[in-house]
Structures are given as structure tokens and as C-alpha cells.
């Protein structure tokens, strides 16, 4: 075990995969000489050479498209979007080509696209988004959103191992803020399995990514009032662990679905609908959602604070559910 930041865990996981499997290579904007915008691949080019750590031109379509082709020829590419927001330029290659290739031709496309996502540091509308629900909606793609250093490392290994295109959403706000012990050896965290971040009896919070920590702080507040909150960290948004969510809901009967993405059509809507369909008879209160408003992410720090769900907002929502 070594104490690693979330960012170091990603870096460590990627390095281990590259050492153990020569088919794995990374490509992205400034990932080589510069070591990546967030320094995830710092030192990689020295260790693995420029052919396995490729500085790509400023074209997400070219990055994703070339990865898809390389994957078809037997490689295991890991593409870095400099910011998750820029993935929209690679949409067609991802959604039309990579996601549908196996369905059309029976040939798997084992690519991983790393997406530094999320806000909380005044990145503004082009550098703060959480676009996971857009891709969870596309059959043929998998989406993972680790919240802890351990999951960051284990899910990256699973994503690289997976024969499908996997979008790996890494939350920028967690990069250097979150530290924890991570096993030094290689290990995997299964895609599609949730993790109980905190056990509780009275209310379930279903969430993922940085919101796990927001929920945890809010749960500490509720605990002072003797309300026990369970936090289910989804870890994978697609496929998602319906059973774990339903089990928690059946236990507590009250649910808050929390995410940093915008509200309308956010993945929380799918979760809420599933709970209504599958666990209706276990509900003791309406399913509640807390999410960002349907607006771009603001630059201004006070506005961004008002935009991204904060601990106080979650405390308020949980209190309402407790009182219901």
C-alpha cells in the first residue's frame, strides 16, 4: 500500500498497464513532452518512448478515430481528452464509429478515452462539464466515474482490459485533493459494480464522482441530528449497478439522487425512474434529485458555487427527506 493522490493513482495504473501489455499506448494533446495538461503522463515518454506516448494534433476526431483504427488492428489505445468538454469534437468517431463497430461488424473496439471532467475551480463553461449522461445514453459505450484513488486505479485497469470503448471520467477537482492508500500491485475494480461509501439506515444517497465527498460531508451533518445516511457510490454510470441501488432503497425507503451534471436528462433521471419502476412499494417519500441547474457552468466563483451542488444544499435536501 502506498498513499497516492487520485491523480497519482491514475498515473500509476496507466503506467502498470503499459508495462505489462505492449499493446497499450497513450495519445492526446501534449501528453508526451509536456506530460499532459494535468501531468498524468509525466515521465511516460521517457519510459515508453514517443511511439507509445504520442503527442497528437489538436483534433479529438483524429485522436478517437485513430484509436478506433488501432484497436481494430489489435492495439489497446488510451486516449486523453485534454478536458472532457472537448470530447464533443470526437463525438462522431466515438458514437457513430467506435460504439457501433461491434454491432455492425462483430469486431471489438477496446479503446479507453480519459476525460478530465467536473468543475469547482472556476474553469468556466468549456472546462468544467460532466458529460457522462450523454454517453451513457449511447449503446455500445461504457462510462466509469471513479471517486477514490483505489477505484481510479482499479477501474482504469478494467477499462483497458474491457473489449468495448470505455469512457473514463476522472474528476479534476479530486486530482490532488483526495489521497488514500492504494495497493501497489495491479488489481481491477469491476465495471458496473457500485460501492457503499457509507452505511446508513434512514436515507440513501445515490451519487458518483466528486459528489461522493459532498454527500459524505452532508451525511456527517445529518448524523448530528441522528439521521443515518447511506451513500452508494455508483462508480460506473453505464452499465450501472441497479441491484445495489435498489437494495439500498429497499432498506432506507428514502432516496436522494445527487450529481454534478445538469438536471434535465442527467443520469439521475434514469436512476430515479428505475427506482420508481422497481422499488415503488418500498418508497416512503418521493425520489429527490439534486443536480446543477440547466445552464452552462459559470466562471464567477460565487456563481459557480451556487451552480455546483454544495454541502449545504445536500444537507437541506436530506433534512427535507428526513422530515417528510
Amino acid at each position, binding site marked *: 500500500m502506498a498513499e497516492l493522490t487520485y491523480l497519482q493513482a491514475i498515473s500509476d495504473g496507466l503506467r502498470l498497464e503499459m508495462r505489462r501489455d505492449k499493446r497499450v499506448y497513450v495519445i492526446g494533446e501534449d501528453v508526451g513532452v509536456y506530460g499532459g495538461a494535468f501531468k498524468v503522463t509525466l515521465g511516460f515518454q521517457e519510459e515508453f518512448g514517443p511511439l507509445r506516448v504520442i503527442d497528437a494534433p489538436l483534433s479529438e476526431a483524429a485522436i478517437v478515430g485513430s484509436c478506433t483504427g488501432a484497436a481494430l488492428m489489435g492495439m489497446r489505445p488510451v486516449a486523453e481528452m485534454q478536458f472532457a468538454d472537448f470530447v464533443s469534437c470526437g463525438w462522431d468517431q466515438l458514437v457513430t464509429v467506435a460504439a457501433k463497430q461491434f454491432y455492425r461488424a462483430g469486431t471489438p473496439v477496446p479503446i479507453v478515452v480519459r476525460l478530465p471532467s467536473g468543475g469547482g475551480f472556476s474553469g468556466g463553461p468549456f472546462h468544467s462539464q460532466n458529460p457522462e449522461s450523454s454517453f451513457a445514453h449511447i449503446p455500445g459505450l461504457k462510462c466509469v466515474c471513479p471517486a477514490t484513488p483505489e477505484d481510479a486505479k482499479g477501474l482504469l485497469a478494467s477499462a483497458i482490459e474491457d473489449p468495448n470503448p470505455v469512457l473514463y471520467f476522472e474528476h479534476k477537482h479530486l486530482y490532488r485533493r483526495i489521497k488514500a492508500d492504494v495497493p501497489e500491485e495491479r488489481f481491477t475494480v469491476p465495471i458496473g459494480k457500485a460501492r457503499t461509501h457509507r452505511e446508513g439506515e434512514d436515507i440513501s444517497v445515490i451519487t458518483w464522482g466528486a459528489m461522493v465527498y459532498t454527500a459524505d460531508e452532508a451525511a456527517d451533518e445529518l448524523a448530528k441530528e441522528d439521521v443515518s445516511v447511506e451513500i452508494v457510490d455508483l462508480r460506473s454510470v453505464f452499465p450501472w449497478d441497479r441491484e445495489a441501488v435498489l437494495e439500498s432503497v429497499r432498506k432506507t*425507503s428514502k432516496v436522494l439522487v445527487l450529481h454534478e451534471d445538469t438536471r434535465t436528462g442527467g443520469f439521475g433521471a434514469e436512476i430515479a425512474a428505475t427506482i420508481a419502476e422497481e422499488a*415503488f*412499494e*418500498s*418508497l*416512503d417519500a418521493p425520489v429527490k434529485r439534486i443536480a446543477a441547474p440547466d445552464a452552462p457552468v459559470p466562471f464567477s466563483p460565487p456563481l459557480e458555487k451556487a451552480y455546483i451542488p454544495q454541502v449545504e444544499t445536500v444537507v437541506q435536501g436530506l433534512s427535507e427527506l428526513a*422530515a*417528510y
Partner: protein
Amino acid sequence: MATETALDVVMPQMGVSVSEGTITKWLKGEGEAIQADEPLLEISTDKVDTEVPSPGTGIVQQILVQEGETVDVGAKLAVISPEGAPAAAEEPAEGPEPTAEPAPEPATAEAAAEAAAPSTAETPAPVPAPAAPDVSGNGKTFVSPVVARIAAEHGIDVGSVPGTGQGGRVTKKDILAVVEAGASTTARQEAAAAPAAPPAPARPAAPAAPPSPQPQVGGEQLEPMNAMRKGIAEHMRRSLDTAAHVTSAIEVDMSKVVAIREQLKAEYQRSYGVNPTYLIFVARAATDTLLHYPWINGEIRGDQIVTRTYVNLGFAVELADGKGLIVPVVKNAEGLNLLGMARAVTDIAERARNKQLLPDEVQGGTFTITNPGGYGTFHGTPIISQPQSAILGTYAVVKRPWVVQDELGEDVIAIRPIMNLTITYDHRLVDGALAGRFLRDLREKLQTWGEDRY
């Protein structure tokens, strides 16, 4: 601006060629408050469909034309009266009291609170006091899906449950408190004897469809079945309907236990005031064995198997009057040595007989021991306490001729104190081989453990 006198709402002129209009929808009902210019109704003419605003602020005192009716332009549609004004003189018989609406609400809440009284009167365990009637919302009448389901499962009238939720709503916790209080009520009531029958019910019986009652004939006496007896009846039936019961038995040479007990008995009684009965030894050894058999200490929950790192040991205890039984639970029995087990069992058994158990103390068992051996019985097939997966039966220790080997390895017949143990297990989860190994290991401990192992 509040109107000072009653105002008439009339069918508006919607253009020179329009002579009549149809009421499509009333947006306010009689008795409702309305602001000036707030939409009051929707009308449809052959030219346009539109909303008609209220001519003033007040109460919709009277609606004169119903939805779907067509009237001429200028016809009177409704009357808006100033707030607090008496009903208008004209057509008073047809107009309902404008403020009649809130009246029934407190009455309902009060009735509900009253109805709650009988069900809690016999319950010594604290039940939340009925919340003050809250007439601000419909909380008292809204029943959430989970509350509806629990109420149906336990045959509880939700209206009789004191609500602590928003607007006096009955929450899941509220109804679960009633379910639990029901169990403890049951525990304290007297019931007909059933000494060997195991677990007491965790919940009152759901009302089963009664067969058409037979009239009483000569020589028969009728007495009503009390809640505990009904609970036991329901639980026994439900357990048999749920689990696939199989019983296995084993004979245990208790020589070692008898010897240790003789040694400890005087000291235990003198120093601690407890009696190290055979049951205590069996409980101690069974707890230790259960830790190696998680499925026997487990439970089927949906299509999942629940296992635990702890043992909560239930003991079937007959009430002092012999009319019913209860299964108090020793929590975390795995942390108790022989003395701890003796103290815990003595304590809960005494309080069970004297009806001093708390509701919490009859719940959460993971495995049960029933001990009908006190009456000399040597075998039985108890019923599993749901949702556990097994129950251990302990029987009389009887001196029997027993084939043992002497120091030369020769078979000889000796007199040995022998106890039969049975395990009745749920074959859905526990197979015969597993149950057999459990009994074998339990016997091994009872036959070989020295004092220090207990």
C-alpha cells in the same frame, strides 16, 4: 383590490358577431379564494377559446353555469363575494358555505387519533404520542407505498397509527414502531401453553380469512384466541410455508460436560448466582460452531444469502404461567464465555418469564435454541424461527448403556450421560451434509472441550 360587494361574472362579448359561449373549464371551485384578474374559467366560442379573469378579489361564492353548458353573452356565470361576507341573499339554498372546506379535516385527524388509542393502550413500550392534528396538508391521508405495503402485510389500519411525518403523515418508522410494539404486546399477553414450540412471532398475525364458525356444542368451551396465540399460530404456519424443514439428530456423550459442571456449579451459584445448566454449555459450544457454519447462522433474503460475523442466539422461553412462549435473544453471543453466557441467558429468561423484556430483545436473532429436554423428551422436530435457517433442539441427559473402549482398546459397555441434539434446518439453504457436519463438530466440542475452552 378586494371587492366590497358581491360581483357577478358574466359571459363576455368576444367580438361583434359572437352571441354565445360554452364553459369549457372552471379554474376555481366554489369556496376558493381568487385575486382580481386571476383566470377564473375557460370559455369556448365559435371564434376563440379564452380565459375569463375574475372581476375582483374575493371568494368564488357560487358557480351558476356548469362545464359544457352554452349560454348567451351577458349571462351570469358566477358570483364573487368579498372575503368573509355572508352568503348572498339570492339563491342561498344552492350555494354551499364558502368556507366549509377545512372543517372535516380536524375531525378526521381527531378521529384517527382516537382510533389509535385502543391499539396502543395495552402497549407498555413507548409509542410516539399522536401528533397534533395538522390541517395544513393532506399528510394524514397520504399513505406512501412502503407504508401501504407494511400495513397490508401486518393487517394494520394506517388511520390508527400516530403519524410524525410532514403534516402528520404516517412514516415508515411510525408504522414499524407499531409493528414492533405489537410484537412486544404479544409477548406480554397470556396465551395457551405450547412448551416445545419454538420461536415467538416477530409480528402479529395478519387476519386470515376465518372459516365459517362452528357453533358451540355440548361439552365444549370457547375462549377467544389472544394476540400472542394468534401470533404464534401465524408464525408457525408461515415458517412451514416458507422453509423446507428437515431434522437431523445426533447423540452426545455428556460425561465431560457433566464433570465440568459439577466442578463449576457451586462456585457459579455462590459467586455469581447463576446455574451453569447443560443448555449453557450447549449454547457456548453451538455459538463457536456456528462461526464456522455461516449459512446455518444465515438467512435467505430475496435471492441473496445473508451471512454474518456475529451470532445472536435466541432461546425459546415458556412464560411463567405456561400459556405461551417468547424467544429473547442474546446479542453477540460469540463474545461471551461460559460465565457470560450463563449470566445472559439467566437474565433474559427471567425477564421473559416475568414479561419484562424490551421489544429490541426479542428481535435480531440469527439462530435459535429450544430446550424441551426438561420434561424428559429425547427428540423433537421444532419449527424454524423465520427468517433464520436453523433451530437447535436440546433434550434430556439420560444415563444409557454406551459402548466405549477401555484402556486396552477393548469394547466395553459403560454407563454414560447421553443427550440427543437435533438440528432442524431449512433445506433451501442448508443441505443435509452441512447440517451433519455441524452436529458432528458440535458433538466433538461437547465431548472433548476442557473447562478452559468454555
